[in-house]
């Protein structure tokens, strides 16, 4: 049974030239040629931002690195049938493992697929909407009340 749980995560955005971003893209979500998001456990944003700033400053002095954790609502959909449940929300073709982004229940969402489950990042203004949609649209999805810390 797929289970939905809110995930506490930190999100850092880095905007820089595509060439500069190539140097810091390990493990990050490249959401645009000049933009990447770095996800981590809660309270890690400051350290992450410092680390990314340090690594990218040499490649692009104008790079912008910001803690944007407040801008995202993060959900984890775990368990057997999580991918089938996702099919009730979106036509995105999920990789076995990796990142895709696009329309999920008609709002823009970043999806991190991994064996056994998915992370969904949605702009915070749609967090409540997506939460309601998942529970209303996807048969058999249950919810775990207690949020958990994000882990890759």
């Amino acid at each position, binding site marked *: 049974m797929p289970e939905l749980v809110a995930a506490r995560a930190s999100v850092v955005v880095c905007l*820089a030239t595509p060439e500069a971003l190539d140097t810091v893209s390990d493990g990050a979500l490249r959401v645009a040629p000049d933009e990447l998001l770095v996800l981590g456990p809660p309270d890690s944003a400051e350290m992450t931002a410092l680390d990314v700033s340090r690594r990218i400053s040499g490649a692009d002095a104008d790079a912008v690195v910001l803690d944007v954790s407040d801008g995202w609502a993060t959900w984890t959909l775990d368990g057997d049938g999580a991918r089938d449940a996702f099919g*009730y929300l979106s*036509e995105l073709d999920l990789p076995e493992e990796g990142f895709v982004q696009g329309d999920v229940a008609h709002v823009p969402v970043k999806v991190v697929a991994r064996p056994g489950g998915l992370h969904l990042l949605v702009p915070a*203004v749609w967090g409540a*909407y997506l939460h309601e949609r998942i529970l209303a649209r996807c048969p058999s999805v249950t919810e775990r009340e207690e949020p958990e810390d994000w882990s890759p």
Partner: protein
Amino acid sequence: MGRSVGSIDFEGRRVPFEDGDTVASALYRAGVRTFTRSVKHHRRRGLYCLTGDCPNCLVTVDEEPGVRSCCAPATDGMKVEREGGRPSTERDLLSVTDRVHWLLPVGFYHKAFVRPRLAWQMAERVIRWATGLGKLPVDRAPELGTARHLHTDVLVVGGGVAGLSAAIAAAERGETVALCDEGVIGDKVAPGPTLDAIRSLQEGMPGTVTILERHAAVGVYEGPLVPLVGDGALVQVHPGRIVVATGAAERHAVFRGNDLPRVFLGRGAARLAGVHGVKPGNRAVVVAETAEAIEHLRTLRYAGVDVVAVVASDGGVAVPEGTRVHRGAVVVAAGGRKCLTAVALDSGERIPCDALVLSMGLSPRDGLLRMAHDLPVVGAGDVIAPGCTLEEAIESGRRAGRGGTPNGRDVEPAPIGSSGYVCLCEDVSVGDLQRAWAEGWRSSEILKRYTTATMGPCQGAMCGRHLARFVSERSGPTPDGTLTTARPPARPVRLEDLAAGVDEVIEKRTALHDRHLALGAKLDWSGSWKRPFNYGDAEDEYVAVRERVSLMDVSTLGKFLVAGRDARSLVDQVFPCRIEDLAPGRSRYMLALDEAGYVMDDGLVCALEGGRYYVTSTSGGADTMEAWLRNWADRWDLHVHLVNQTPMLGAILVAGPRSRQLLSSLSGDALDGDTFPYMSHREIVVAGVPSRALRVGFVGELGFELHHPRSRSVELWDALMGAGADLGIRPHGLDALEVLRMEKGHIYLAQDTLPDDHPGKLGLDWAVAMDKPYFIGRVALERMREIPLERKLVGLMFERDASLRGVPLHVGNRIVGRVTSYGSSRVLGRAIGLGWIRAIDGVFPTELRAGEVRATVTPTPFYDPEGAKLRA
């Protein structure tokens, strides 16, 4: 007799059904022979194909019209009604139209009720009533089912021998496979070698194959995308490639009386007898032109049907011994009043019988194949090689499953007699086609449109090839005689099934949503946001702003960080306000203009340290503003980084004469007017929450917008409400804001403006620095400055209170404008508004009338025109 497992309510009569019964088989077993009436001539129509291909068995099931009863499983308590006929299907007074065909000639719709124009409007209702095509349940909400997407390497459409073989072959290659069938696999096939092969293939089906029974493929679209409609479910399949194995329907036969009840296509009669154990008749004549006709013959006999004669061509299929065979004969007519009672052969012989079973060839169900242009779609089995043997079907399926293209064969043209019904759905006879041809309609597509042949529920499945044959026989091998274009839906589909999954109301919420609800807020839509309209007492909310202190959740405003070495260049060129002298810490009102100089949006530009800017826009304009800035940065190849901070930042407006007092109680930062003047911004900490505070004045009072991390909105709101209790704090909503901003003459974009308003029409020339060398819209404004204003937005004062928003403004009897905003100003003791007016002979009127109320053009702002309060 089998065992009854339930009953259906058929027009008030209880009809039992057996395990595996469809609605059609249960009704036929109960003696129902007339299932519907034809649309034009009201002829009796009974079961014919029993494969879901013809329109003869459409009934209303549980208030849903147009259900194919041969495909609908019978369920206990189901309510079934027939559709055609007035007053009833069994006793139809309108059947008189069958004797006066001249009243309804071919092309009727193009010839009758053309003039006077009202005639058609009146006739249409009568015609719709007379056709008797079921009744839509308009008094209930649609039952929207689930919708889902399915990605697979291979989609196989059709669970027959070829389809199953294709699915197995593809799965054996390691591909992900989904197989759909509109029924239950094998449920339409009578016991025999074909069903044995299907069961054997099912047993060998790998468990990895996704089987979707009772899911009909509606069409093939680009992508490719194949929507499957099941019982209350829409599955949108995104396959890498598609194998169409939809088989073939038995060929519709055209001769006089071909539409009488108890005339069956071969597979239909065999299904009735072999699958459901219901004899189609006691004495049957079988027309055997296909190899499978012999299988049908055996099935009928096994069920106890006396096959009194077989009609077969010379050198045709071998008929079992002991059967009376009419070699070389042709059935030219079926006779009977309510049902078939005899058939006539071309030899003149008349054979009494109560069932005619026609197995005269196969017509491929190739609609899906024909609508799939330039897509990875192949056919397999009967759909490309009608009449192929079991071995050929298996091989064809395997080849398609492995990614190959199976061999097809030409489809024999459908023979067409000199009379009889070609199109059963629309009651189009051979004579109708001949008359249309004589009138000059001479291609398949044109004949289709003129006669409506192929345009009924079966979408040409029965008659499409007959129509093409009719034309090609007369025009020769030209494109005129080809099949008409195949389009979705390939199978009948309910609109509510297609609409499954689109019931979302996409709602943006601020972090304070629950706080507003707890305070009793009445929420209203504001663009895609849900915002407080009021908290129960809009008047006191207004008073709180003007006399005490008030909060408003303005998190919905668009909020953007513009950074990068070309940030200033972008902001300076996009917006018409002066940027050059905007020092860090200062803000400026901003209009966003398009290339034509028309106002798109407004907001603030705040200069930050390090050449960065913080830009705010209206709540509804945030998405457009982001796209607008990104577009121009790209077009001008500027080195700019844009961060849309709308989702991550909350914003609370603290407004009112006591707002500074409130903030001072929660912040150690300097907030006095000298240190922190109007139209400036500072980073301050309020109740421990770091905020960018903006001195603004949309409501016309001393005000601070606190832009802060969204996650801390609740904490900040609670602290402000708590500390403000002694100051008479009260939050205000959009209701109070409407008058507050109007008193200041501030506009609501879209409500007070029109799409072609430039700043001059709105009295906003002061917000445009025409001495800048360039900004978007400058060239247009330069040109428009030379044209006298014909229309402008003005402030209005009304002599008395009335509801006047949207009311036209008159001078004498002439309409010269319209009221766009209206409200009763408590502080002015007058009704005020905004509205646009036109110049009369180059002069703008000052005295007007809105309905019966006098209106006087008044300069804005109405309240605090010197701005002393907001600059305090």
